[in-house]
């Protein structure tokens, strides 16, 4: 099917066929990373603005590399040290940037719905690079690409997502995407960190780690999002780690072909032990590599598809 959307705001909005197309395109983009000269002229003359209101290393760098490998001009904007500190509203800043004629604005914001707001008000394409605890669609896409690459398919796989589901935009985007691709999703974590309405998204809920991971094809460990917690969710980090942390001992009861994933940043020794993070089951760095390919696919489809 053909890509016709102006924006990529959420996994909830897009259809299984579009996800499949995005993954196919990303898979083809991977070859460029293996070249001696990592550049194709595809988006020459296009401008991509990274508009980041929250800190980010991986995602911003990944979008920047993706844009540059496609020959787009990539401009980075971070809220600190900008007019946002002088009292300019989010929408006004975005409109000012649009007045400089970018083709794609990649936005990360602490408020859920920030990218959707820009998508409604700007003529250029908008990509959601994470909005509060809402969604992070390119992360879900790179996770799906990694799983498809390692397992050969997506449909019918069992995925268990462990940890702070409530504050995780990665979990939310992945649940939408995985359900659409015919996967079974279980979320596991302390009751305080599992949203009550979780089952409405079509996932199973477990409050025992051993039970949740025993039959999983894929285990995705999440970081505790301290920056979004207002307090009182867990008794202590040490207790959380003992009950919900993934160490070698627990890994022994998993399937021998299990994939261990983590969207990063990893807090070693909290949600995942260093031995597991570096084990042969871990595909954490493959996820990062695939992130560039997925973002190249997204920029290509958004910036290249509309009539100029």
């Amino acid at each position, binding site marked *: 099917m053909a890509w016709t959307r102006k924006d990529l705001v959420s996994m909830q909005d897009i259809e299984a066929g579009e996800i499949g197309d995005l993954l196919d395109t990303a*898979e083809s983009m991977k070859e460029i990373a293996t070249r001696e000269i990592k550049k*194709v*002229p*595809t988006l020459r003359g296009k401008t991509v603005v990274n508009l980041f209101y929250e800190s980010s290393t991986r995602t911003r760098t990944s979008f920047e590399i993706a844009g540059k490998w496609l020959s787009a001009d990539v401009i980075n904007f971070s809220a600190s040290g900008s007019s946002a500190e002088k009292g300019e509203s989010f929408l006004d800043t975005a409109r000012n940037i649009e007045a400089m004629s970018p083709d794609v604005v990649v936005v990360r914001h602490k408020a859920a719905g920030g990218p959707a707001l820009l998508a409604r008000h700007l003529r250029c394409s908008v990509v959601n690079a994470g909005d509060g605890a809402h969604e992070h669609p390119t992360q879900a896409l790179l996770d799906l690409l990694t799983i498809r690459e390692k397992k050969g398919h997506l449909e019918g796989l069992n995925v268990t997502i462990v940890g702070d589901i409530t504050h995780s935009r990665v979990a939310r985007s992945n649940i939408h995407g995985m359900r659409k691709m015919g996967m079974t999703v279980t979320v596991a974590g302390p009751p305080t960190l599992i949203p009550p309405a979780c089952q409405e998204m079509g996932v199973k809920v477990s409050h025992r780690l051993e039970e949740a991971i025993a039959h999983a094809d894929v285990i995705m460990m999440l970081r505790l999002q301290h920056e979004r917690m207002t307090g009182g969710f867990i008794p202590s980090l040490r207790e959380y780690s003992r009950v919900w942390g993934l160490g070698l001992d627990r890994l022994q009861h998993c399937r021998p072909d299990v994939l261990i994933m983590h969207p990063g940043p990893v807090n070693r020794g909290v949600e995942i032990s260093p031995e597991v993070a570096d084990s042969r089951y871990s595909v954490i760095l493959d996820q990062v590599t695939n992130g560039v390919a997925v973002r190249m696919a997204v920029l290509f489809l958004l910036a*290249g598809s509309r*009539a*100029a």
Partner: protein
Amino acid sequence: MSAREKAEVLDQAGLDRALTRIGHEIVEQAGGADLALVGIKTRGETLAARIAQKIASIEGKRPAVGALDITLYRDDLGTRAEQPQVRSTEIPFSLKGLTVVLVDDVLFTGRTIRAAMDALMDLGRPRVIRLAVLVDRGHRELPIRPDYVGKNLPTSRKETVAVMLTEHDGQDRVVIQEPEEGEPTLDGATTPTPRRTIKKGRA
């Protein structure tokens, strides 16, 4: 757009003979040494593999074969209603110092070949690039000329040339099609490339 078949240009035997002749011409000019065939996806890739087979039966040695996807090098991105599918480029050998023969099914405006040459140059520095096409239908928009031609085929712009290969279409033949009476022609629309034309031809 529906199309009416106007004439068969090559049947299975004719198509095979054309590829045999191209194989002989390549060997005669380039010899077998340091030769690589690079097919432009998707039918060019199939034709490159078949020509390589011909060369193997002549020389006893099969040249290296690669496949090139030129989507990322097109000059009409953003001007088309829908985005073409990006496929992967598979050239698992160094191009440095090789005689590379680009292979495509139909040579039309020359824009695909321009894109393919840019793509090849990004991957390495071949000694020579030559061009083999099954059908040259004319109407060039760029100064590009094929070195090996299966069939020269004068066409009008509103006609389309459909290359059918067993691997993709269940049969080997080349036909000229023209749009049904009263339907809009390709003229004035987005610049058609051979690939696009074929797709329309099969629709």
